[in-house]
């Protein structure tokens, strides 16, 4: 195809003028159509991926807040966090996606599992992990969700993402260490404080 490119370019004027150059025009049309169909296929693939991920996340999220077994809730939380990481990758935010996997699935979940193991005597389902009165909580959550969903649908409507949303790790690093350096340092100090605080609170005297 590349070897043909100069030829087709030279013949383009003729074929556009309606000259009988059947092979050349078909090559031209193939060239013109190929990007469009691939973009369309990409859009379809993105949407299918989004809805599959969203379905998994909603089911797992529902189980996180309803599962009677604490360990199962933690394992379902992994599915939600992995889904969020996949959505980040879908949006082209590669560094945040990888960080989500490393920090959340790698560290936070392990911390949760340690906490569960240290605070539970019997393994298996606990019957008393929920309040008996679920209706007020359901109402409050439904209200929050309904108001938020209504307002985002009202504001964004059918606004779409730009075609190219990919950002590289390079750009993120540049931004953190120039524009947001003060916030970065503050977060570093916060992490140190949290580390020392957790040790002081949890140690045995």
């Amino acid at each position: 195809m590349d070897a043909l490119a100069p030829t087709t370019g030279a013949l383009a004027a003729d074929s556009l003028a309606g000259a009988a150059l059947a092979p050349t025009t078909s090559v031209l049309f193939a060239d013109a159509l190929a990007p469009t169909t691939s973009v369309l296929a990409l859009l379809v693939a993105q949407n299918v991926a989004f809805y599959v991920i969203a379905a998994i996340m909603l089911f797992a999220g529902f189980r996180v807040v309803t599962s009677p077994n604490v360990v199962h809730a933690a394992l379902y939380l992994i599915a939600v966090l992995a889904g969020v990481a996949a959505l980040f990758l879908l949006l082209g935010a590669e560094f945040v996606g990888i960080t989500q996997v490393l920090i959340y699935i790698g560290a936070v979940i392990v911390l949760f599992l340690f906490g569960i193991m240290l605070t539970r005597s019997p393994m298996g389902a606990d019957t008393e992990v929920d309040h008996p009165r679920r209706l007020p909580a359901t109402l409050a959550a439904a209200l929050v969700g309904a108001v938020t969903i209504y307002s985002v649908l009202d504001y964004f409507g059918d606004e779409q993402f730009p075609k190219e949303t990919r950002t590289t790790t390079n750009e993120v690093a540049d931004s953190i260490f120039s524009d947001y350096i003060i916030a970065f340092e503050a977060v570093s100090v916060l992490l140190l404080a949290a580390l020392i605080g957790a040790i002081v609170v949890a140690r045995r005297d």
Partner: protein
Amino acid sequence: MYVSQFAVLAAVLFAMGVYGILVRRNGILVLMSVELILNSVNINLVAFGALRDSIAGEVFALFVITVAAAEVGVGLAIVLLIYRNRRSVDLSEMDLMKG
């Protein structure tokens, strides 16, 4: 992809987290629900960053992840301390400051 897809998914996750915080009695499960809420906010931050073609969304999502990790560390330490003192992490028994 539509922006409202991501925003609605994040809103539903947020509502689930609110339900979990209100209805759970185990301290660790409440912390997990807080994680659900923080993650839904992160989806919104990254999505709006992509929409406005701004890197700030991703940077703030990273900060939220960091703060969430710190929060889980301190929160679990507190839960462990409560368990050590009272042999239970049932939040409905924590009524020491109830008037």
